[in-house]
């Protein structure tokens, strides 16, 4: 019997994935546990392991295929003694060409996707364009709205529904089309670049075509865009800023790092830990939320979620965007544990190898731009969280101590809060508590 390898579901909600890379080729022998492919979802890259051993008879889905449906056949292994060529042939015949995702080419200029030849499944112009079908699967939209959006090259996620309970209906798609004036014919005609949404042609019109090029968005960029728009549009943000004196914290950090035991490894000896200021800030945020539990909340229309732990997301810049892996129950973890966990999360984040449960949820976040010399800034809240701490650079500033101007290391922190869940006085209390912990950092060791 041949062994079928299908597209795995990397998360319960995953419907499609991109087959980024094959790590084996046809004819290769694989053993159980061998990594054979890399699958990309919107936020993570995962490895697919072979569950059995055999010879790769056929790679059904080519590398670089986008929006491959979960559970669709991606490869076939021939078992020992089987003729790989025959297995490949059988598998393809069984599978039928329909299951192989259509190459993702825009059918610009071919006109309507209908009519469908008689006798064939007429299923949907929508499905003939795998991009739009997959992209819109979880969106509440009428069948006609889906099809109109697909035909117009509009992204349903960017359209606000006006139907019952926010359902996207025909008039919403048509309004979106009108908003863009004439459709972006230029982009569509070019064929290679994806057509910009119709409402973008007005933007492009103000630039000379020879002066720019359009780079298609990576999935993660679209997720970032969508989530931040949602956040800024729906969450009433307000901001509270305080300056924290870092002198005590920097001294403590230096003392702790000096005290780190040295561990001998193959590649040489290294201290057991090396705390960063950021590790201490993460812990400080976690402890502050523990001390001001009224601010450790998330807003729901039906009620307030009061979190029992401080799960702190930390914004990490990655090549195509950013991601916020989460340190769970950070208030209970030691600084060295936080530090070690953070190093691992950052490393895997940069490789796009975080699992969804490692970056989803969280009760607050830290965004630190201190390393870029930023004095202060305001961050956008990461829903469903109600707060985020924006950390500026620690720098020598003139400050007044005991009536005299002295130099001290000062760091500005700006808290963004969801006013639905956290009122001004509460936000001030949280920031004050954070400042207190930073300035009396022994609290981080308890």
């Amino acid at each position, binding site marked *: 019997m041949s062994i079928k390898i299908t597209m795995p579901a990397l998360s319960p909600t995953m419907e499609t994935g991109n087959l980024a890379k094959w790590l084996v080729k046809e004819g290769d022998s694989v053993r159980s546990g061998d990594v054979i492919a890399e699958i990309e979802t919107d936020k993570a890259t995962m490895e697919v392991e072979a569950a059995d051993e055999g010879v790769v008879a056929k790679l059904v889905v080519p590398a670089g295929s986008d929006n491959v449906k979960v559970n669709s056949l991606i490869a076939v292994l021939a078992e020992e003694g089987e003729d790989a060529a025959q297995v490949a042939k059988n598998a393809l015949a069984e599978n039928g060409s329909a299951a192989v995702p259509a190459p993702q080419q825009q059918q610009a200029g071919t006109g309507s996707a*209908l009519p469908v030849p*008689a006798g064939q499944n007429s299923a949907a112009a929508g499905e003939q364009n795998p991009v739009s079908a997959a992209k819109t699967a979880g969106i509440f939209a009428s*069948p*006609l709205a889906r*099809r*109109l959006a697909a*035909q117009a090259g509009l992204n349903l996620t960017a359209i606000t529904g006006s139907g019952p309970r*926010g359902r996207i209906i025909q008039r919403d798609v048509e309004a979106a089309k009108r908003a863009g004036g004439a459709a972006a014919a230029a982009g569509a005609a070019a064929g290679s670049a994806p057509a910009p949404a119709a409402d973008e042609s007005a933007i492009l019109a103000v630039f000379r075509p020879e002066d720019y090029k359009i780079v298609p968005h990576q999935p993660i960029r679209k997720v970032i865009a969508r989530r931040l728009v949602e956040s800024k549009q729906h969450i009433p943000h307000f901001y509270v800023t305080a300056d924290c004196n870092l002198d005590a914290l920097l001294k403590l950090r230096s003392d702790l790092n000096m005290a780190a035991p040295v561990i001998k490894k193959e590649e040489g000896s290294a201290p057991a830990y090396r705390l960063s200021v950021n590790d201490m800030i993460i812990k400080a945020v976690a402890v502050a939320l523990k001390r001001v539990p009224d601010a450790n909340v998330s807003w729901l229309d039906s009620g307030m979620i009061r979190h029992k732990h401080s799960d702190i997301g930390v914004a990490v810049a990655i090549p195509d965007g950013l991601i916020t892996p989460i340190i769970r129950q950070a208030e209970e973890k030691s600084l060295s544990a936080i530090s070690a966990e953070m190093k691992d999360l950052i490393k895997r984040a940069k490789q796009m190898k975080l699992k969804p449960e490692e970056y989803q949820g969280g009760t607050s976040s830290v965004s630190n731009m201190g390393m870029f010399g930023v004095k202060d800034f305001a961050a956008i809240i990461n829903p469903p969280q109600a707060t985020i701490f924006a950390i500026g650079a620690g720098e020598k500033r003139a400050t007044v101590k005991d009536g005299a101007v002295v130099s001290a290391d000062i760091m500005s922190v700006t808290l963004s809060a969801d006013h639905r869940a956290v009122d001004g006085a509460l936000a001030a209390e949280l920031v004050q508590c954070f400042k207190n912990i930073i300035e009396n950092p022994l609290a981080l060791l308890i």
Partner: protein
Amino acid sequence: MVYDIIIIGSGPGGYVTAIRAAQLGFKTAIIEREHLGGICLNWGCIPTKALLRSAEIKHFCENAKDYGLTLSGKVAVDNSAVIARSRAVSARLNAGVGYLMKKNKIDVIWGEARLQGQKNGQTQIEVHKPLKPAYQPQHPVPKTVLGEGVYEARHVILATGARPRALPGIEPDGKFIWTYFEAMVPPKLPKSLIIMGSGAIGVEFASFYRDMGAEVTIIELMPQILPVEDSEISAFARKQLERRGIRIMTSAKVIKVEKGADSVTAHVESSGKVETITADRLIAAVGVQGNIENLGLEALGVKTGRGCIITDEWSRTNIAGIYAIGDVAGAPMLAHKAEEEGVICVEKLADLPDIHPLDKSKIPGCTYCRPQIASVGLTEKKAQEAGYDIRIGRYSFAANGKAVALGEDQGLVKVIFDNKTGRLLGAHMVGAEVTELIQGFVVAMNLETTEEELMHTVFPHPTLSEMMKESVLDAYGRVLNA
């Protein structure tokens, strides 16, 4: 007492609006001068359905042998009993509206209303004795009603409906020239009948009186009967009606009517020739016109046009606080349009979220002649005129198992899709029970279906509804049973 909302007219538009207003917490009253339920319940939709049911059962009895049944003797029509049943049906629903008003704590004010003026953001309405007596017989006035006087409301919704249109020189006289009022309660059945106009009302009476044994001639000004219907459906219906012995003249105009001792003679001009047709009675069914008179519209400066009150998409007139819904606010003059318009109007007043104006392109229409006709959306011609590249599917009753088993194998289902998007633009049906089928397509259209969802919907077997799916499949070259 100042009401939040007073509705003038208790037809299907008015009384449904009143209930919705009361549900939304508005202190609501309704003013009626003749009959709760309006023309629809008392002199229109409902009593005619009762008459047509009598006609249908007579037809079944006369064809019992086709089903292996022997009826000894002749099926005789007891005219007064047929009418009595129709009136009883109407009376029951009329009383039902009274009950609904009471249950929803809606005050019923009995009399004719006239807008007096507006001050302090309120409109004053004078309620007085009707200027003209109501058509008789009427159902009894509800027991607890408020009487004449001046009433005040923050919002006034005009739902005064419409009445038969009279053509100059052919004015209904109640004796020889009838409107639907007289046609619904004939003292005796006419042996011959001329029907002017082949809209729903004209064709339904033609169907009824033909079944009751009268010689019927329909005279229609337009080139097809049922002018608003798809021409293919209209042609199909015409053939069926003619097969039943109804004479139909289209592109024909009644230029003169002469009354005899107990007959009328119509001079009918058609393709340049004038023909005289004599019959016992003539029914004028040339449309209806809005009831905009004696309402005090002029006093407030409420704008009217083409016999109707001019409103915006939220049923607002040009005067703040005054609204109009239903027939008096313009076409399509259908009870179900009036109801929805009224509901949207008061929901908008309540400032409910996500309220949208009525989409008039998705209002179904039904005609209860034999065979029945039902439709929603664009006709083939209208779709072409609108510039759509269309795709049409058809399915015949002759190929449907249930239709054949019922002995009702004459009919047609026709669907029209936009070729580009797969949007269902229109659905048109003629045949048995199609008035009950059409709603499937109406729901589909309102949910914004494409052909795909309809093709993947499981229709129960054996039913007439299977023809709906087959017609969709046919539009895409995939019909199964044909």
